[in-house]
């Protein structure tokens, strides 16, 4: 019997004001049961106030071997950080 339930990724908002964060995965036949399983599996101790479940197959991920071309260009652009700029100490609120 190979009608294995699809995999879902579970995201939890731990408290109001914070983003949802990845917690793990569950297998479930549909979205409704995925939510229930996520609740039973990942929030038995008040870990969250809100849950997202997303079919794992729907997630598009970057390729780790392309990490260099993707992320390294930002390395040389240090002028994107406030510490790049020199201003006299005597000048306030900058």
């Amino acid at each position, binding site marked *: *019997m*190979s*009608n*294995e*339930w699809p*995999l879902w990724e579970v995201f939890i908002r731990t408290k109001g004001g914070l983003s949802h964060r990845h*917690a*793990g*995965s*569950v*297998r*479930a*036949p*549909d979205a409704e*049961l995925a939510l229930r399983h996520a609740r*039973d*599996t*990942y929030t*038995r*101790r008040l870990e969250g106030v809100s849950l997202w479940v997303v079919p794992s197959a729907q997630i598009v*991920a970057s*390729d*780790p*071997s392309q990490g260099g071309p993707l992320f390294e260009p930002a390395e040389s652009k240090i002028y994107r950080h406030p510490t790049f700029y020199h201003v006299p100490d005597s000048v306030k609120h900058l």
Partner: protein
Amino acid sequence: MYTTELQKQPSRPVAESKAEKEPQELVDAFEARVAADEFIEPKDWMPAAYRRTLVRQISQHAHSEIVGMLPEGNWICRAPSLRRKAVLLAKVQDEGGHGLYLYAAAETLGTSREEMIEALHAGKAKYSTIFNYPTLTWADIGAIGWLVDGAAIMNQVPLQRTSYGPYARAMVRVCKEESFHQRQGFEIMMAMANGTPEQKEMAQDALNRWWWPSLMMFGPPDDESPNTAQSMRWRIKRDTNDELRQHFVDVTVPQAEALGLSVPDPKLKFNDKTGHYEFGEIDWSEFWNVVKGEGPVAKERMSARVKAWDEGAWVRDAAAAHAAKQHAAKQAAE
């Protein structure tokens, strides 16, 4: 236990990875990352032998959590009070959760949950030997929480820094949940040890029966663990079996003393020079027999597990049929 190779032969990672002709620059980069304590994530390149070792270890760990529910689940209906029942139910539910986190972590390596579960039910997969011992009295539930979960914690805490990201993250979650397991067990032992003479005797008897199997949970001695060095180098394992076992004895003996119970080892004695306890010989032939499935209740455990799975089949089928029907109705409406 969970990092224990339950096979006597060394696996052949070195020779095999050569046969698989893995590009040397990838292997070198991987080894360097692991040596620098970086985490390896599912889509990163990894040697096939690293992947295989992890699949075996994580699935074995997951199976241990799942089978581990059985000896205790046995006592939920017979817990002596509503409080104890609620606590035991919560603990057993946690163990089920641990199994699920771990199956999910193993699945990121390309194995399927179905495959793992089928292997378990077919008797092809291993799980911790400790769960093939029977739970005869309520004191056994105390001894399991105190000793078995205690040993599990000792094994799992270092795994929070294991090199494979999804496994490490699952361990962080598991470790957060484990400490109540051990404390509730110790509390049961305290209640029994301070109860009637009969209750104290039950507590002592449980300690007598669970002590040696708990020490075996850490796996064979280091000189008989041929794969330890490789696993340590890959940061899949962070301490050796003997190191963890010694640490367990060192922290647990004073706890037994606090309970007023005696550890069933006439050779046990504290060595002032080393600051460690010395303890007697472990009967490894018993361990290997249990690994081979000759534990006192091994068959009972597996048949209980398969029965639960089979009896739940209609629920899984109904849920899948419902999902298919909803999906079809939604498509028709579009």
